[in-house]
Structure formats: structure tokens, C-alpha cells
């Protein structure tokens, strides 16, 4: 419970990386979802994770956000914050936000209310009961509504949005949390070509102020945004590099095309 009081905005990135995963292993009933995986994400970088189904991409996100506890290894946020000691709300409060593969917006609430709930503020029970939006917070919500192109549908129920719009709202909720690290699982699944392009622009505009980790199957999309790509295979890092390097790596070709 001490994690509640964790100071936000004080992640020690003096050594470069903001996220450290070292020797992380997770197994489910004997199946090794992650196998001695090590990964470092720099402050402000945009990293793409690719890999065939079952490579461990989603498990990796589960470990970072506290949903799954690894059997071995260590996960650090900056130099000092041990994520394995925190639970989901505490990790979120520390500054790691996550967008799920399947859109999971709050369908009964309006677009505006979805963003309001995600807003970075005191999320204790009593402060929430008496919460009133300040004009600065309203402006912040409007700003995000503009960014995600949903300003016209702000009072619409989130459940009535199209699939692509829900994905955008998810990203908007992430932005409202003002995280230092954003984990984005399959942002363009089910989007039209135009929507994919806009998503790429949005994600590119975020790098620098935030670290963004994107898991995606759409290779064309990955090519359009990625500087560095990490390929996962059978729960560990197969290779890392630019998209061109990765695509020409014979091991990657073998993994993707099968033996």
C-alpha cells in the first residue's frame, strides 16, 4: 500500500534507459512464454516489437504493467523503481500506461467521461468523490479530443464508436494519463488505410517527450514509424536493429517463413 504515495515525475533516467528488463522468465503450466528475456528502452524512444504469434509480446506487456509476475528476472523503471514490487494501479501512477490489444474503453460512458477518468490526478476514493474538473483540466481534455479527432463525438457513448475510433479513444486515454512510457498493443488492428496513416503520425509526434513501445503485426505500419525494431521469438529477443537490418536477417526470415 506504500506504493500509493509514490512520487510521480521522478524517474531516474540518468543512465539513459527508462525501462530495464533483465533475464525475465515467465512460464504457464510448463510453457515458457518468456525465456530469459532482456530488453532496454531509452527515454523518449519509439520502439517496435514484432514477432510471430506466441513469441511473448503480450506477456511482456503484462509483466511490465504488473498483470503477470515473472518467475525470474528483474524489471526496473528508471534506475530506482522496482516494478515487480508494485501492483497495477501503482505502476500506472508511476507513469506507465497501456493500451490493450482489444479496445477496452468504458462503453457506457461518453467519450469525454472516458478521458476524464484517465486524467492524471489524485485517484484516491474521497478525492474522486469530490472531484471537480478545473478549467485547465477541461482544456487538456479538449486538446486530447482534438488530437484523437473525436472532438465532435465528445458526448457520444463510447460503445457507439466505430472500431477505429475506439482505438483512438484508447490512445487518447493513454495521453490523458501523461505516462512516461506508453505500451501500445496493436494500435492499427481493424483500421482503414487513412486511419493507419493518422495513427502513425500521432505516434511519431509522441516520441521525444515519451517512450513508446508498439507491438504490431502490420509490417508496413512498423516500417513507417520504427527507428529500432526488436524481434521476439519463443520468449526471447531474436535480434534488434533498424527495420532494414531486421528484415534482411536470415534468422528473422526463417522464423517468419517457417522451417
Amino acid at each position, binding site marked *: 500500500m506504500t506504493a*500509493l504515495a509514490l512520487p510521480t515525475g521522478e524517474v531516474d533516467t540518468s543512465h539513459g534507459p527508462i525501462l530495464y528488463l533483465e533475464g525475465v522468465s515467465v512460464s504457464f503450466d510448463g510453457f515458457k512464454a518468456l525465456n530469459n528475456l532482456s530488453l532496454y528502452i531509452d527515454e523518449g524512444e519509439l520502439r517496435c516489437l514484432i514477432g510471430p504469434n506466441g513469441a511473448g509480446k503480450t506477456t511482456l506487456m503484462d509483466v511490465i*504493467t504488473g*498483470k503477470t509476475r515473472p518467475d525470474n528476472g528483474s524489471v526496473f523503471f528508471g534506475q530506482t523503481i522496482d516494478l515487480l514490487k508494485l*501492483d*497495477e*494501479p501503482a505502476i*500506472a*501512477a508511476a507513469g506507465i*500506461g*497501456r493500451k*490493450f490489444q482489444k479496445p*477496452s*474503453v*468504458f*462503453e*457506457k*460512458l461518453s467519450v469525454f*467521461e472516458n478521458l*476524464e*477518468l*484517465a486524467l*492524471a490526478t489524485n*485517484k*484516491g*476514493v474521497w478525492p*474522486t*468523490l*469530490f*472531484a471537480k474538473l478545473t478549467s485547465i483540466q477541461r482544456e487538456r481534455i479538449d486538446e486530447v479530443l482534438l488530437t484523437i479527432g473525436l472532438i465532435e463525438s465528445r458526448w457520444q457513448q463510447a460503445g457507439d464508436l466505430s472500431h477505429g475510433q475506439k482505438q483512438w479513444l484508447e490512445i487518447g*486515454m493513454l495521453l490523458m*494519463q501523461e505516462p512516461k512510457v506508453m505500451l501500445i498493443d496493436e494500435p492499427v488492428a481493424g483500421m482503414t488505410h487513412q486511419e493507419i496513416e493518422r495513427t502513425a503520425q500521432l505516434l511519431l509526434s509522441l516520441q521525444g517527450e515519451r517512450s513508446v513501445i508498439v507491438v504490431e503485426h502490420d509490417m508496413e505500419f512498423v516500417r513507417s514509424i520504427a527507428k529500432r525494431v526488436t524481434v521476439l521469438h519463443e520468449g526471447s529477443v531474436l535480434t534488434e536493429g533498424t527495420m532494414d537490418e531486421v528484415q534482411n536477417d536470415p534468422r528473422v526470415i526463417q522464423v517468419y517463413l517457417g522451417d
Partner: protein
Amino acid sequence: MFKQFYEHDKAAFWLLTLIGGIVFLIPTANIIFPEESPFHVSAYSISIIGKYLTFALLGLSLDLVWGYCGILALGQGAFFALGGYAIGMYLMRQIGTRGVYGNADLPDFMVFLNWQELPWYWYGFNHFWFALLMIVLVPGLLAYVFGWLAFRSRVTGVYLSIITQALTYALLLAFFRNEMGFGGNNGLTDFKELLGFNIQSSAVRACLLIASGLALMLAFVVSKWVINSKLGRVITAIRDQEARVRFIGYRVELFKLWIFVFAAVLAGIAGALYVPQVGIINPSEFSPLNSLEIVIWVAIGGRGTLYGGIIGAVLVN
């Protein structure tokens, strides 16, 4: 102000008007019209209507936890019964020497059991203010401890429903035991006075009806405010996407606990208003079936509406 309110929320406006009307008209009809008049409302009918109002409050309390937060609590009746026992203990102490055995210190059933002195947990119940405090504290505290254990270990769905049934069943068995000191099988009854007034009189019955109506209206307004607050939206979000709420930084278990305790307190108040109007509280109020019935009220009235629990409770009864 009324017009604004009416336009803002018509259903709530009419519901409050209706309850207000009942609270005002029924006692008036009892007093003004002579007994032979067709408009006369008997003291018996007053108690019946008052009883329904307390059921409505109980239905409202379950709608908060189930309708809004998605916790299918099948033990809401336990909190109702505990509130009832708290006021029942006060009413027993008021009997004084007018009991069958004429013992000023001990209720009849204790004399019957050959007890020599009042058990410690009956201390204080000769004061009305103490009973009022217990009506709120006992159900609230039980809900707090139970909810803290259950929600912290992330017991949800049907498992939570089952342990809430187990909770009320355990209390049923405990209160049946004579050694518990709550009158065993027979419970607490034969009440004489409430605050020094004859509890059977029309005036006291009318006052209890008014108190029940006002408590219901107040609970409705406060619940409405809670549901319209940001906390209300978090609660609804927990119902629809519990895991997601955690990932945006809310401690889901604390929010569930808050609404669970709030609803338990409302149920306790309902029970405390119910008991003086029916004149008895016994362990059957803890029966698991009672708690299931409350679920049916809310289901029929419409869950997640606040007035659903109220309408359902009245309709079914």
C-alpha cells in the same frame, strides 16, 4: 429551482414527488377522516406502507452495489437485519419492568434463560443515540471487514455472490442460538415504547412512516449525487471493465469497498425503520432467501437506475 430539477431529471422528480406525497397524505388521511369514511387510512395500513418504504430503501441500496458496481451481493439482507437488531435491542431495553417477568435490567428471554446480568454487548442500548450509532456502525463495520478481505483478494463474480450468501447464512445460524443473547429463535419482540411513546399508537406509526419516507428520499438524493460524481463513473467503469480501471491507476478494491459499505449502511437504516413498524425482529431476516428476493426486486425494477430498486420493492410486495 424545482423547474430546473424537473427538466434535468424527470424520473427522479416524479419519484421524489410521489414519496413526498405518500409521506404527507397517508398520515393526514389517518387523522382527518373518521374511521367509517372511505378515505380513512387505518393504522395497520400505515405500517404496511411504511414497511414498503423501508423495503424500497433496501432495494435502492442493492442497486448501488449490483446495478452500478456489478457486485452481485447476495447478502444485503444481513445488513438490513443487523440494523433491525440494533433498534430492536433499544426497544427491548425500553420495556423495562413491563415485561412478563418484570425485570428492570434484563429482557424477558434472558430471565427465562436464567441469566443474572446483561451481556456486555447490550450495554448502551438503553440510550437512543447509542442505538442510532450502532444502526450505522455495525452493518458498516461488517461490510468493511468482509469487503476488505473479499475485494483485496480479488474475489469477484459468482464466488463473491456465494460467500455473501454464506455470510448471511452464518449470521442466521448464529442468531438462532440462545447463547448469543439475541433472543434466539423468537428474536426480539413485544416492544412497548419508542422514545417514551406507545409504539402501537397511530401517531408513532405515522411518524415512523414519515421517517421512512424521508430516509428514502434523502438516500435517493445522496445516491444520485454519488452516482453523478466522478466516483460514480469509476464505479460504472469497474462494472464494465474492471482490469482497465486498474491500469489507469485506480485502486479498484477501495472503490468497491466504499460503495459496498455505503450500501450496507443504507440497508442497516432500512432495517432499523422496518423493525418498529412490524414489531419484531428474528433470525429469519438473515435467511439467504430474503437476500435473493432483494435481487429480484432490483432486477424487476431495472438495475442501474436507482429508482429501479424502489419500484421493484414496492411492486413485488
